């Protein structure tokens, strides 16, 4: 399945401009897909299960994801949809996944971003936060075992860092000097629980020195800053120096899931972060640098909307799985 035309990279004549436009295409595509999912398809009852989006956090999967090589491993969190787009998963597969259709990556066996594809080196998340952290270490171990110079990228939220798995995984990876880049989207809330009730230190990155893992804090709503930090992190891990942690400060601009109105979030806080929207900031930069006019940016959004319309149409035509598939694939028979 080929990617939508809008996501094909053009020839790089002006690298900074081309990269900025690539950021925009992926971030805007993720935003558009998730807006349709959360604000339309879910409310229409076409998506019956959980909806967890990354609105306001798009700079993180895009800024990090575009530093990766194709053979690197991604362990996305549930708010990192752009990683799938970067690896060539088509928006229509994502819609079908959400709608429980056979066109989704799990053929209806699971929903939302609970999906993976080892042929694209994406390991599926499970609902228990941080469970992917030791798994990412194991993937990195396999890369090192085979002498590859590839790395694994492990994504999680601030809440996940309260779990024992997280600590065990970081410790193991550091002891074994495994090539893992940890990417925390610190969006300041774990469901309704603010960071202050999640941990007694100020930053997630404060936890890294205990494992002798270098860490840095980055503005998670500035895609350029995220990209630069991820490049530093990847270089460190690729060179055989062990894991590296990036803490991306951001904010969850939605509820925990689509049913959650997030009334526990102080309005002023949400307003403050609304002013730091990563796509708005990127577009201002594009216009300010003379890389793209407002009109050109508008055309990108138009094209994305068209692609997304077509993707939804495709997904709605994708059939539901037959009930007979229920019993299939409990075991691998190969």
């Amino acid at each position, binding site marked *: 399945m080929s990617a939508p035309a809008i996501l094909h990279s053009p020839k790089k004549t002006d690298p900074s401009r081309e990269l900025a436009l690539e950021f925009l295409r992926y971030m805007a595509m993720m935003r558009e897909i998730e807006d349709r999912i959360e604000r339309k398809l879910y409310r229409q009852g076409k998506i019956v299960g959980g909806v967890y989006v990354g609105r306001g956090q798009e700079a993180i999967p895009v800024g990090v994801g575009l530093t990766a090589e194709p053979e690197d491993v991604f362990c996305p969190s549930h708010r990192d949809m752009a990683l799938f787009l970067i690896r060539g998963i088509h928006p229509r597969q994502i819609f079908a996944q959400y709608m429980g259709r056979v066109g989704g990556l799990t053929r209806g066996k699971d929903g939302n971003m*609970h999906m993976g594809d080892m042929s694209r080196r994406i390991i599926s998340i*499970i609902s228990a936060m941080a469970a992917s952290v030791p798994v*990412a270490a*194991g993937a990195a*171990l396999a890369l090192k075992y085979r002498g590859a110079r590839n790395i694994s990228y492990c994504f999680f939220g601030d809440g996940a860092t309260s779990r024992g798995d997280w600590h065990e*995984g970081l410790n193991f990876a550091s002891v074994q000097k495994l090539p893992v880049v940890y990417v925390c989207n610190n969006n300041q809330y774990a469901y309704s629980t603010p960071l202050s009730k999640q941990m007694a230190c100020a930053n997630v990155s404060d936890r890294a020195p205990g494992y002798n893992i270098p860490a840095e804090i980055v503005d998670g709503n500035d895609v350029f800053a995220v990209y630069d930090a991820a490049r530093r992190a990847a270089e460190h891990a690729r060179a055989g120096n062990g894991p590296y942690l990036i803490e991306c400060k951001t904010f969850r601009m939605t509820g925990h899931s689509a049913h959650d109105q997030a009334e526990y979030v102080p309005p002023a806080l949400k307003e403050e972060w609304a002013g730091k929207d990563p796509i708005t900031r990127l577009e201002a930069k594009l216009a300010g640098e003379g890389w793209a006019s407002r009109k050109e940016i508008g055309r990108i959004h138009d094209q994305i909307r068209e692609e997304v319309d077509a993707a939804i149409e495709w997904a709605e035509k994708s059939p539901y799985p037959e009930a007979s598939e229920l019993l299939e*694939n409990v*075991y691998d028979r190969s």
Partner: protein
Amino acid sequence: MQMTYLEAIRQGIWEEMERDPDVFLMGEDIGIYGGAFKITVGMLDRFGERRVIDTPISESAIVGAAIGASLMGLRPVAEMQFADFITCGYDQIVNFAAKCRYRWGAAVPMVIRAPSGGGIHGGPFHSQNPEAWFVHTPGLKVVAPSTATDAKGLIKSAIRDNNPVLYFEHKALYRRIKEEVPEGDFTVPIGQAAVVREGSDLSIITYGAMVHVAREAAETLEKEGISVEIVDLRTLAPLDEDTVLASVRKTSKVLLLHEDTLTGGIGGELAARISEKAFESLDGPILRVTAPDTPVPYSPPLEEAFLPNAAKVTERARWLARY
């Protein structure tokens, strides 16, 4: 070649590591120390730190890392130092490993070795038989060998299998049993029970160390004119229902025996299946001989009272034969 159960496991792993460079080991104290039970002695010297990895005391990390490595096509064999500690990696096993294939089609070719069972004065945290938790989890395979030959053949099958396999090895058997094990490379298929003693009056369905208890009971009963058939399940998930039902249909009476505690144990599942599918063949109630619903106690008289033994089995079997 005469071999202990422990040596058979060791040799099975060793041969698989020689055969397939993707097989590697992870666990606590398995390298320089050779493992708490010395299963992995010499492997660090032979295969090096790359393939014999001493880990921190982190069962969740051990299992999780095994999952990640197996998703990438390696074949990790992870050791839980004692089966009792498997609880610390429970989420990784039941929520991650077991569901990958079903959810998104990814194979997870990994083995978790779990030294289990009582009779070694290990007390409540070094004696448990937690296999039923995992039998209840779709997507896992669970094996529990009772002989040295099966121990070797099943560890090889487990390593070659493309699913997460839990390998429960009974600690009390490590050095207590010794037998002739076939030379060379052989496997014992996962999912096949074995009739290890033919008989006509009643069937004892069991596995692990209790196979030996059943044999002892059968010898006594034979002298009393009661002919006992013994089915060694060998694999607990997926269950070899056909072999169990065939034995029940042959003898018409069945005693289910396990060292695990009673409630929610595999005996209950077997009883239900036998009742559903071989009810017409039954000439008596389905009996269970198991440990009682208590933690495993430490003091010898308490532990002895806890564990099923030949005397307890013989007594119940006599009653059933007369029924």
